[in-house]
């Protein structure tokens, strides 16, 4: 069963189209990732799905309710952690939990149970009286997640929950997300970090308000990049880059740290061409090898080919 079904969702701010005719489906219990650069339209899409921003056209069914016609029913069935959400810094841990538990109208037995759970996942048992503003970022984010799902919604939207959090805390946060998914909660999460895409069951990549790719990580790597990537280790890299470009080798040539990636169609083997082009020059060629494309490669490729058209 689909937890979310989005049909031709569009949002215009004046003459500017922030989200353009977007459609996709999210299965129940899935971890669904939204990727995209700044301003791609991720937050705008999520706000529409939460029922707090009215679509300009199109509609979406969230937990079976239309975001356009029944936003209040949608709100009752979801949890949401906004991009900036950082709880009330001037309230204690316990007061924050009580406030959100209260506004969701939890009855006291369920509330106590959920409060205990929220404290547990944030690792804050016995520290209920701490002022929230004094907590470290990672713990605060977990507490924020705990309060966002205090009412046990079937769907939760997390807008860049891990931005500005250190890598260890990020990993712990993703473990928590996994735990939610195992409890059959659908998790929609946006992120800037491409490596986090690997944790998602399914992904969409947005750019300028449009979906430019979708699928799981494996599909994305295979379907959208029908090419081979060669990684070249050499010195000096800049000179190598120039030579390769002069010789028009492959479709795309990009620098990756101190290596160079050449992307070429699968059918032609360009390894030899590369070696020949460089051998005649003053270049120390350490290695040329075919590598698995990373999501980075896929996205750079997708964005570049989109900009060309």
């Amino acid at each position, binding site marked *: 069963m689909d937890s979310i079904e989005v049909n031709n969702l569009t949002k215009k701010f004046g003459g500017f189209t922030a989200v353009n005719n977007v459609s996709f489906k999210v299965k129940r219990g899935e971890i669904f990732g939204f990727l995209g650069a700044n301003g791609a339209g991720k937050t705008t899409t999520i706000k529409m799905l939460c029922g707090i921003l009215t679509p300009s056209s199109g509609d979406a069914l969230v937990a079976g309710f239309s975001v356009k016609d029944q936003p209040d029913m949608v709100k009752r069935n979801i949890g949401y952690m906004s991009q900036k959400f950082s709880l009330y810094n001037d*309230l204690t841990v316990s007061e924050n939990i009580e406030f959100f538990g209260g506004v969701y109208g939890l009855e006291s037995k369920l509330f106590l149970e959920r409060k205990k759970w929220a404290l547990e996942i944030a690792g804050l048992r016995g520290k209920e009286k701490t002022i929230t503003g004094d907590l470290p970022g990672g713990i605060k984010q977990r507490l924020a997640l705990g309060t966002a799902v205090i009412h046990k919604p079937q769907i939760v939207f997390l807008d860049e929950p891990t931005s500005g959090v250190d890598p260890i805390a990020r990993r712990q946060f993703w473990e928590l997300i996994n735990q939610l998914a195992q409890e059959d909660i659908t998790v929609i999460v946006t992120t800037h970090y491409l490596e986090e895409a690997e944790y998602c069951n399914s992904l969409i990549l947005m750019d300028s308000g449009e979906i430019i790719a979708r699928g799981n990580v494996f599909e994305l790597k295979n379907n959208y990049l029908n090419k081979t990537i060669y990684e070249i280790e050499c010195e000096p890299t800049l000179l190598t880059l120039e030579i390769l470009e002069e010789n028009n080798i492959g479709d795309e040539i990009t620098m990756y740290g101190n290596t160079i990636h050449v992307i070429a169609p699968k059918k032609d083997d360009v390894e030899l061409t590369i070696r020949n082009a460089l051998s005649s020059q003053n270049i120390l060629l350490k290695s040329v090898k075919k590598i698995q494309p990373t999501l980075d490669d896929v996205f750079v490729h997708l964005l570049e080919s989109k900009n060309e058209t």
Partner: protein
Amino acid sequence: MKILLRIIKKEFLQFIRDPKMFRIVLIAPVVQLVLLGYAANLEVKVIHTAVYNQSKGTTSRNLLRELKATGYFHLDYYVNNYKELQKLIDRGNVVLGLVFDKDFDSNIGASRKASIQAVFDASDGNTATISAGYLQAAIQKFNRKISLITLSKKGKEVRFPANIEPITRVWFNPELKTRIFMVPGIMSLLLMIITITLTSLAIVKEKEIGTFDQLIVTPIKPYQLILGKFIPFVAVGLIVIVIVLTAMAVVFNISVKGSLLFLFASSLIFVLSTLGLGLFISTVTKTQQQAMMIATFGVMMPMIYLSGFAFPIVNMPVSIQYITYLIPLRYFIEIIRGVILKGLGLADLWTQFVILIFFGILILFLSSLRFKKKID
């Protein structure tokens, strides 16, 4: 209902944890009341005067004695030329320079017209005008006296056809202390400032830190959110009134002549407008700083200038006078001054009361509509 209580509780918790708020609400009003109360003092008590008497006869000395006797004129300096006089005025040592001509006394003796030159430092126009008034009154009085004397000297029985001396009695503010007039006005300002700023800041703060989106995604209804913000600040506003009334009684010895109940009822009606304006400000701003700017320069300053708080409305250009009818603060100040100074009640002030209700409902309704629209 439960949700509303939750929000109110949260608001109070945040309020008491914020030392800045505590200062705004408890200390600032008293300090402002005292400072403004003294500063907004338009009366002139002492007129520092320098005398350049070229005549030195009896009459001139009598006049000076008379002036001194009023208690207002302090004859601090006697000088011997214009230059010195000029210097004293320039330095601000005196506001008034009195110059008697060489033939002042002889002129009077000969029943000719005698004149005195009075030089004012008009850099403070108010003080100068008021001092000039005092001087004129004093000289007139003296004039009458010497006419009587000279006439009787000539052996005539004197009877003025109508010797009318105006005896001015100022009601409600017998000592004509502007302070007494200003202080109730200051109380209305404080109530306005506190309710407008607290409301707009409390809402915009949530937007700024990102909890606003978090709130509207919960089942909280817009009206609950609005009430949850309003109720605590109305309570704070009422507490401030109590503080100010106490300070007023203790510091300025002004007590409320009319009904306290009517005073509080009007305050509650008045804050409908200010809360509405605060709510409106929160819908047009994104940061606390913006909200503060708009609240101060866009809303409160114009309200204060147009309310008749500082400048009497009758002295304004006619077109501006019409605008003042749109300022809720105007009516509230009329009510507050009426209740505190004159002991008036609903029977006398019902027009203002009804207009305030009307404005309150209108402003609150429109802002809530806008607020709700912004959320959806």
